[in-house]
């Protein structure tokens, strides 16, 4: 595999702009030499052999301290002499740095249809909470390097979510468990099978009464059927399911409404009016969010039939920021509102008992108008309830959708996608009871991390630690909190290493195929269960194929199998909509109305979900959509409340709930409901790995099955002191004391209709220059590249950031450096708030390099390291850069990023495998920035040029060329293309009246322009939002001075 020239580029490290490889130490280059000569599976066997060797162990377990930033200060690791050596070696004239000889290692027998140096794509699926995100994975010579959405698949249509994008980093995570261990000692796979065979045989005699299987949410038909068949054989055995971020409320709500658990699925493309009751359906983690975002965004076109979104929410979310009308409301009050609303549209409901506090002045006014709006759009509206709202709210939502005749139009019901839709809380509860009462002899924990994230009152960890359970087997990718408490830990294979299958939110099944042999010989749940079923030796591939063989009715299974693999989904597996009848019309209120104290909300973390991604540097450093915080979870409260409690940003406060206490840092979030606190799950891990351990604070101790999502009676007290929170955004309002800056242009729909080109700023005339205006005839070129970003579609999902990071080998710098303002994201999504601080309007603005035609950065670079290409790209030549940072100073958009220290990890071999071989890896002291993914442009150009020469006719690059951000965008908010092609999408967009360039008055003439944001507020309710009474707290100032 190492004959790929390009890859050696990425992997090896030499030449002026790179850091030296350790010659003395075994690095990947050497590993390759030793293993490259074998092909396919053999290759990896030899890796395992190699893994035995001492220096390989040393390399794999090379100590590097927690927290990316600290790597950089660790002298022992990036040794003084070595770095000096670098400087010296590079100190000569460039030409004078001699290149050491390197090897080229060809195959012995070249595998079929492999062209060295050309990537291939394979379809597979990433799962979160069981739900599959269908994806295509780019593979460079058998190394998966990039995740893309699967354009064919109804659940993706080319879009992805941040978790899928970042999962590639998990595959190469050097902290992954590498050996099967028994009480910490390394064991072999056969040894493990031996060890469990004993207890198994006993159990099978007792019909498996002592066997418990604990899984996460499972949608894999194969795995489900495996487990089920085992349970059929051993009726006494039990299958428990636990997901900390679960959809119990959804299924319970459905039961409440229809008497059976059904999956609810929405079609936002047909919805004119949408009412979200605390549902963040536009952000990753909400099943179907990718598809929902696509459909929702498509309906935000102000020139078409634009939809209207009402959001009533207890925690500011990106969905709320996109709303036309948004009301912050304590979670507990939302049911009351829902009832009133339901009453309003005549579902025979009694209006909400206790009056919820109502920002828009007068309950009557605002819920009546919403009700009228809904009733006005029968069959073309959606009422959607959030996962963390109690079942009754879901039931009410169902009732409303029924009453509005949306069912079958915009709302569909179907079989649960989850293979075992038991109530997670209860299921785990039952298991813990059994464990304590000694009923459990063999516990198989297949994935998940219950020891960390189980409800506090169950105290799962202690139950697991106690010897009540004889044999505890944990299958997991990391040696985490749970693994520590089980005797057996079997490394779990990453999904990119395994055969399996999974269902998307609509039930469509995808076959998960491996792109690489397990790096550390990981095993899948399938393989573990085969041992139970007494059929060891069956590979995941066999199992999956056998299962679908059974399902497949038609002839020619091979064709079916190959097609399914190729397409990434299996024909006709989508769950058919089923009709369900509403049982009753009134549901007892579950939540009592707010009592004393504050309301406490638990939310999944926008970046690291329930904590499972804690060791993923990309996600840790991904600015959370609203706060732009990285590496930490705050205690989030509203401005008014902060004022009353005299709390300020970064103040350390103690949070008390159910008698348990935790300490955390305060973040004041504009638009957060009053008397309410939000905390985020997933932080404070104790055994996450070198990245994730000891970041933020753990709130699981406060979380019980009684109040999994919110509860009353929380206390918040300042304990003094400050804890630094690393936010990547300086200033979260466009307001300045001397007026608002025209960064994001926004109008209401009717204002837009009156004055469509309101956003245009007049650019200075072209000949307004000291020079004889010299035109660079871009229009005469075959291509001139440009980009347009539709602020109306953008939902701030952060996908583009992670996609860009993955595509362009962007480094993770760690909290310390982020605090200093040195994060490296080439593309950032700015979040601005405008208007009253208690309920402001929110704006998202993705900012890549503007590729200005009159680029201020180029003018000042002393060495011409950044200059214009003939096609209007603002090229950045890393190997020419001497690092004066002048360009960044002179960039009005501040999109340039600088390697202040050696941010790239040059030594961890896994990362060398992961990197995109087509993009130079930047060394210390080099400026970098967005280049419109010029590597993709080049490759497409070379292919088309070659083709045109061969076929003797001109072939041009078309819309198939997409930048990484554009490709991953679920909202289709980014369009990139050829400005010289009159039919290109980007030209169409730039022709729109609401197209404008940021800071046009500076005459930089950006190639990246924006489509202004248009809101569609209900004319009856204008007052609620349009008022710009009191400006926001300039957050940056507060943060700035508080260090």
């Amino acid at each position, binding site marked *: 595999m190492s004959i790929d020239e390009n890859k050696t580029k990425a992997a090896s490290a030499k030449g*002026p702009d790179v850091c030296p490889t350790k010659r003395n130490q075994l690095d990947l280059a050497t590993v390759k030499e030793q293993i490259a000569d074998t092909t396919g599976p053999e290759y990896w066997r030899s890796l395992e052999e190699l893994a035995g060797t001492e220096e390989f162990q040393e390399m794999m377990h090379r100590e590097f301290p927690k927290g990316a930033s600290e790597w*950089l200060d660790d002298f022992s690791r990036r040794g*003084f002499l070595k*770095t*000096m050596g670098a*400087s010296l070696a*590079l*100190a000569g*004239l*460039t*030409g004078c740095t001699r290149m050491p000889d390197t090897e080229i290692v060809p195959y012995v027998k070249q595998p079929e249809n492999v062209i060295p140096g050309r990537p291939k794509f394979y379809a597979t699926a990433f799962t979160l909470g069981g739900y599959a995100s269908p994806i295509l994975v780019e593979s460079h010579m058998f190394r998966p390097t990039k995740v893309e959405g699967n354009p064919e698949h109804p659940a993706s249509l080319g879009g992805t979510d941040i978790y899928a994008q970042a999962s590639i980093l998990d595959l190469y995570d050097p902290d992954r468990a590498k050996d099967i261990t028994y009480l910490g000692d390394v064991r072999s796979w056969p040894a493990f099978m031996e060890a469990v065979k004993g207890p198994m045989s006993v159990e099978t005699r007792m019909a498996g009464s002592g066997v418990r299987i604990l899984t996460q949410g499972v949608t894999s038909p194969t795995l489900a059927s495996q487990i089920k068949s085992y349970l059929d054989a051993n009726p006494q055995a039990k299958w428990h399911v636990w997901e900390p971020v679960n959809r119990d409320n959804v299924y319970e709500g459905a039961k409440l409404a229809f008497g059976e658990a059904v999956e609810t699925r929405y079609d936002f493309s047909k919805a004119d009016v949408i009412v979200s009751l605390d549902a963040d359906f536009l952000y990753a983690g909400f099943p179907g969010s990718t598809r929902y975002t696509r459909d929702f965004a498509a309906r935000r076109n102000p020139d078409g039939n634009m939809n209207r979104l009402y959001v009533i929410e207890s925690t500011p979310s990106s969905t709320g920021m996109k709303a036309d009308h948004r009301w912050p409301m304590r979670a507990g009050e939302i049911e009351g509102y829902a009832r009133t609303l339901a009453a309003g549209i005549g579902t025979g409901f009694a209006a909400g008992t206790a009056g919820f506090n109502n920002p828009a002045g007068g309950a009557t006014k605002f819920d009546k108008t919403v009700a009228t709006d809904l009733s006005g759009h029968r069959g073309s509206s959606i009422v959607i309830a959030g996962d963390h709202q109690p079942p009754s709210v879901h039931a009410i939502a169902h009732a409303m959708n029924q009453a509005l005749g949306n069912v079958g139009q915009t709302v569909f019901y179907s079989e649960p996608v989850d293979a075992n839709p038991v109530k997670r809380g209860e299921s785990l509860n039952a298991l813990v009871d059994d464990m304590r009462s000694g009923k459990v002899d063999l516990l198989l924990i297949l994935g998940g991390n219950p020891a960390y994230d189980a409800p506090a009152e169950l105290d799962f960890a202690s139950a697991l630690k106690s010897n009540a359970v004889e044999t505890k087997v944990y299958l997991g990718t990391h040696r985490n909190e749970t693994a520590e408490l089980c005797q057996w830990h079997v490394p779990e294979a990453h999904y990119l290493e395994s055969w399996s299958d999974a269902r998307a939110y609509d039930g469509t099944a995808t076959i998960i195929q491996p792109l690489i042999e397990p790096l550390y010989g990981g095993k899948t749940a399938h393989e573990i269960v085969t041992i139970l079923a007494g059929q060891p030796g069956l590979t995941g591939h066999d199992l999956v194929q056998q299962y679908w063989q059974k399902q497949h009715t038609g002839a020619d299974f091979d064709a079916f199998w190959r097609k399914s693999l190729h397409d990434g989904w299996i024909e006709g597996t989508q769950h058919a909509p089923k009709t369900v009848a509403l049982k009753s019309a009134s549901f007892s209120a579950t939540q009592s109305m707010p009592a004393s104290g504050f309301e406490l909300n638990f939310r999944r973390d926008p970046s690291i979900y329930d904590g499972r991604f804690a060791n993923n540097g990309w996600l840790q450093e991904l600015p959370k959509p609203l706060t732009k915080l990285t590496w930490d979870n705050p205690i989030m409260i509203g401005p008014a409340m902060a004022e009353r409690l005299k709390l300020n940003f970064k103040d350390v406060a103690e949070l008390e709930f159910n008698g348990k206490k935790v300490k955390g840092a305060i973040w004041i979030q504009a638009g957060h409901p009053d008397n309410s606190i939000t905390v985020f799950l997933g932080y404070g891990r104790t055994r996450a790995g070198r990245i994730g351990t000891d970041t933020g604070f753990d709130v699981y101790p406060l979380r019980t099955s009684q109040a999994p999502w919110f509860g009353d009676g929380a206390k918040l007290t300042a304990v003094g002191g400050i804890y630094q929170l690393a936010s990547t*955004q*300086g*200033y*979260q*309002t*466009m307001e*300045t*004391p*001397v*007026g608002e*800056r025209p*960064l994001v242009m926004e109008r209401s729909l009717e204002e837009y209709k009156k004055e469509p080109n309101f956003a245009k700023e007049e650019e200075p005339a072209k000949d307004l220059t000291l020079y004889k205006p010299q035109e660079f005839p871009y229009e005469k070129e075959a291509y001139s590249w440009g980009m347009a970003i539709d602020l109306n579609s953008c939902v701030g999902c952060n996908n583009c950031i992670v996609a860009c990071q993955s595509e362009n080998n962007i480094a993770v710098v760690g909290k310390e*450096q982020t605090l*200093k*303002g*040195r994060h490296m994201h080439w593309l950032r999504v700015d979040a*601005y708030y405008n208007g009253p601080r208690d309920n402001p309007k929110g704006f998202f603005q993705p900012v890549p390099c503007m590729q200005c035609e009159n680029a*201020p950065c180029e*003018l*000042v*670079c*002393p*060495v*011409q390291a950044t*200059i214009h290409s003939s096609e209007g790209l603002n090229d950045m030549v890393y190997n020419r*850069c*001497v*690092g*004066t*940072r*002048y360009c960044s*100073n*002179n960039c*009005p*958009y*501040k999109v340039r990023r*600088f*390697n*202040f*220290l050696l941010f790239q990890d040059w030594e961890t071999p896994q990362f060398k495998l992961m990197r995109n071989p087509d993009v130079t890896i930047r060394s210390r*002291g*080099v*400026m970098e920035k967005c280049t419109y993914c010029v590597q993709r442009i080049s490759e497409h150009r070379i292919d088309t040029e070659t083709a045109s020469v061969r076929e003797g006719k001109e072939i041009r690059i078309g819309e198939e060329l997409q930048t990484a951000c554009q490709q991953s965008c679920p909202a289709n908010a980014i369009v990139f293309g050829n400005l010289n092609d009159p039919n290109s999408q980007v030209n169409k967009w730039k022709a729109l009246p609401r197209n404008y360039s*940021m800071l046009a008055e*500076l005459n930089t003439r950006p190639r990246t322009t924006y489509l202004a944001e248009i809101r569609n507020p209900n004319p009856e309710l204008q007052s609620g939002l349009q008022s710009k009474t009191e400006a926001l707290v300039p957050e*940056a*100032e507060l943060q*700035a001075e508080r*260090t």
Partner: protein
Amino acid sequence: MATQTQIPAPDRRVPVIAPGHTFSTITDKISNIVLKRPISLGWIFGFLIVFSMMNVLMMCLGYLFVKGTGIWGINIPIGWGFAIVNFVWWIGIGHAGTLISAILALLRQTWRNSINRFAEAMTLFAVACAGIFPLVHTGRPWLAYWLFPYPNTMNYWPNFRSPLVWDVFAVSTYLTISLVFWFIGLIPDLATLRDRAENPLLQKIYGLFAMGWRGSARHWHRYESAYLLLAGLATPLVLSVHTVVSFDFAVGIVPGWHTTIFPPYFVAGAIYSGFAMVLCLAIPIRSIYGLKDFITERHLETSAKVMLATGLIVAYGYFMEGFMGWYSGSQFDSFLLWNRFHGPYKWCYLGLLASNILIPQVLWLKKFRVSTGWLWLISFVVLVGMWLERFIIVIVSLSRDFVNSSFGMYYPTKWDWMTFAGTIGMFLTFMWLFVRVLPMISVFELRMLLPEAHVHENAAEEVKP
């Protein structure tokens, strides 16, 4: 005959140097400092201090090369920190010398004869300190030679549109010219030292650098025209250097940088700080080495007046910035103004106004101009103020530019401070050595200040029989 020999010095005001001096007394007094005066404990002690400070600098640079510029407080948006602030500050200080020796020479300001020598020395050392920063502030200093146009295998060249390249040429030119200017001035005095030194080694050393100067009339003739031409060339040069430095900012589009007033007010500021530094050095030196006869109160007072004048120009500069902020109507500029008075760095700006504009106004009063204590204090305050000015221009402007989301803050690290202190150490180290090994006042130019140095036109006839 006696009557005609009473030819008054061309300058009819108070004589520049105290009366009662002859060629030999002047020569003795100054050359003895170098040749005869024993090295005092104080000198050694002071030297140890400043020398160790200089080594701090070396340490900082070593660590910088190993780790990268990340050891400083810089970030995005504030890509330039102390390095550039110090660079501009030192370059500014480096203006007094050449100004005094060149411009005042052209203006026939004979009083400059007693201070030009060490003012020039100071210039050299200041520029040397300044020169360090443009090199080491780069991310990859070992490639900084790419800023020079040399025949390279890449067929690729510097960007002559970039102010940084202009800097390279301007600063290196300034350094070279100042150096030769200073050296030319030294030649006759080196000859004096050569002829007065007893130690044969010293004789050889001084003799080597004196290049065999023997005071021939022909030589003096060429010497003077060369000196005059150099002065003529150095005058536009000294004005251009800080103009070019100001282009680093004026060419940029950052609010607070992008302004046409920078060149004049940078130059004025440079002279301002330059004279402040001259006074800070002259006042102690003249008392320590008993040179009050040569560096008289008149020198101090005149320098004080120059400071006052340039200070007012600088004040005008600040005022115009403010005015344009308001008058331009550009909201970015008016926010800049607001930010300076109310932003997180407001104390720097207020401090700047105080120390550069308010306090120096006392120089209107003679009392302060002639009291060495006060004068030294004020000069020091001005030096601080001018450093703050560069801090405001470089850092505060960058911290709040166009896009609100990218506002940032700059917190200097210990390395920032140590590097700054280190350059001061280096500067003083050079100064320390200079006063011991070279005549810190131009001897032959002082001789010319004596009445008997001026030959009566018709002297020839006088002695005819």
